[in-house]
């Protein structure tokens, strides 16, 4: 579990030496030997992940029904900068800028948001298996979005897509129930958590199925594909709309990272350390619901990203949310982009919903944790 702490990373922390009153520098050796994430190590990890994200994004934009080479990229970029050919943009340019890149970016945003939501829910519920999909928050958001689609009230107004807000409302209702349960237990034990999720999912799925069955059959097929969790190439306007929601929500969660650290120590201890836990938790649940609502409204129910990614990242770099949060978001983004590339290309020209790929990858991991690592999960 703690393999990540084994690598000592030497950092040049000046301030400890500068203070005359502190003991010899050797005394603070623990602060440099991997016991905590030094600023330097944190920056290294995040810089590495940002670089990897860029590489993954570019590579995955090149794969697809039509593979694009480096020269196709160059041509497309040249056309973008100097559009001298008027409207007759090349095929490569159309594929890249209207299909692939928007879809890859959307996948990155969705995956990142799901992972950040997973990290937050795990800290709030003090349970490393919490995930918006398993808990039924995604189903709640999907129900909200499905109702809006049924009534035709999810359209974009004033640049801001309204569908995410309906997802937000649905997700909030699901989270309010979970919040109630967690409050009465202090923390949500694994069995209560899974049971609550199963029942909530069953009820909400029944309601979604009800909506699908009374819908016009032509539209319900699209709804089903969306429910299974699938990404499509959004317009740039739609992409920017979702990006606004995801960026705002993720920034908010990042801001709360040190507070999340303290919240994992338990309600009373967090309060004794000066945190207004009721207010903070409510805010964090609201942000979580907003993020889930936003991503579910564009991609449906993509499962297990929020559980698998934070878990893997925690194993690699430790539990400090100041780095766990941004690192999980970046890794989650990459994971979904790669999953979606598999979904697009494995059976090309047919596409499978990306939710199937993530569930096939994440489900077994979840079972593994539940069966063989249960000492950690209680």
């Amino acid at each position, binding site marked *: *579990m*703690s393999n990540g*702490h084994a690598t000592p990373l030497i950092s040049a*922390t000046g*301030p*400890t030496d*500068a*203070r005359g*009153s*502190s*003991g010899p520098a050797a*005394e*603070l050796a*623990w*602060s440099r*030997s*991997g*016991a*905590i*994430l*030094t*600023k330097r190590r*944190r920056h290294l990890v995040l810089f590495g992940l940002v670089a990897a994200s860029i590489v993954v994004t570019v590579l995955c934009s090149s794969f697809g029904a039509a593979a694009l080479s480096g020269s196709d990229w160059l041509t497309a970029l040249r056309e973008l900068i100097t559009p001298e050919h008027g409207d007759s943009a090349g095929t490569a340019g159309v594929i890249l800028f209207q299909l692939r890149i928007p879809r890859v970016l959307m996948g990155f945003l969705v995956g990142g948001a799901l992972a950040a939501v997973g990290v937050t829910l*795990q*800290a709030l519920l*003090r*349970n*490393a298996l919490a995930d918006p999909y398993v808990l039924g928050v995604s189903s709640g958001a999907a129900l909200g979005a499905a109702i809006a689609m049924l009534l035709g009230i999810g359209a974009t107004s004033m640049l801001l897509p309204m569908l995410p807000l309906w997802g937000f409302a649905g997700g909030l209702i699901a989270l309010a129930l979970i919040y109630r349960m967690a409050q009465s237990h*202090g*923390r949500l034990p694994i069995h209560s958590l899974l049971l609550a999720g199963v029942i909530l999912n069953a009820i909400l799925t029944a309601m979604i199925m009800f909506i699908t069955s009374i819908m016009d059959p032509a539209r319900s097929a699209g709804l089903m594909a969306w429910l299974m969790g699938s990404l499509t190439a959004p317009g740039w306007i739609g992409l920017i709309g979702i990006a606004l929601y995801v960026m705002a929500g993720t*920034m908010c969660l*990042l*801001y*709360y*990272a*040190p*507070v999340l*650290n*303290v919240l*994992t*120590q*338990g309600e*009373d*201890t967090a*309060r*004794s*350390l*000066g*945190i*207004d836990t009721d207010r903070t938790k409510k805010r964090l649940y609201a942000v979580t619901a907003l993020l889930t609502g936003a991503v579910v409204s564009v991609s449906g129910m993509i499962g297990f990203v929020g559980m698998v990614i934070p878990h893997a990242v*925690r194993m690699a770099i*430790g*539990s*400090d*949310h*100041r780095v766990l*949060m*941004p690192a999980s978001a970046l890794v989650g983004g990459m994971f979904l982009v790669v999953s979606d590339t598999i979904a697009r290309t494995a059976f090309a020209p047919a596409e499978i919903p990306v939710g199937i790929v993530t569930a096939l990858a994440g489900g077994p991991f979840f079972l593994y944790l539940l069966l063989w690592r249960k000492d*950690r999960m209680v």
Partner: protein
Amino acid sequence: MQSSLAHRPEHRAANPAIAVEDVSFRYGGELPGRPWTIERVSFEVACGEVLGIVGPNGSGKSSLLKLLAGLLRAGSGRIHLLGQASSDLSPITLARMLAVVLQEQTQVFPFTVAETVLMGRFPHRQAGWWNFGSEADTADDLACAQRAMAETDVLSLADRPVSELSGGELQRVMIARALAQDPAILLLDEPTAFLDINHQLDICSLISRLRGERQLTVVLVSHDLNIASQYCDRVLMLKAGRLSHIGSPAETIKPDVLQAVYECEVVVDAHPQTGKPRVTMPMSPS
């Protein structure tokens, strides 16, 4: 050493560390008819004193400690900490003044010992929205954590995940986190519960050492009368939410007092080394 480690001597001389005036509390707030968990309790704790709270199961020991910690709000009466009404203090100010080690401390995530101890620095940190929660631990934070870990002898565990520690180690880490808060008052709820005698001794000598080195005011709840007798300056006995007796171990750990509070016969003799009262169970009449 430095300003944040100094212990505000101006407060110490003038006021008692803790003054509890006629405090009552019941769960369920204002609902009438509920029994009082704590009823009209008044006492003072001097600066640098170690007070033990003892009493039968369900007598309100932990509730009283949580009232002192500000985790529960008194239904009536007032609590003053270093001369300031605790209800007037902001959560952060309170957290800089007073630290508490509670009983329930399940560690779910594999934070390292050093990371856990550094969480005690939270109330001293200036959160800024501009760095999006990525503020680093300052040299001050590291120095406080260093001192706390050295005092509790967990430095060698600094890079170990807390989820893998033994009970005794974890208890010392929790105390280290509380010390990293750099408090004037330390509250401990059953600090020796579930520990074997070796680790009980560890924790107790640590508490004695701390009051010497840090001039900490310590209030500890214990079900173990001998620990209260040997390590506390005074003992407060609760019975059914009411203060039954308070005084030095010699005044409180006596057969007649214990008979009145616990409603059972016990044998009290003198500790062979300290001469303080020692409680043992009598031979059962069968």
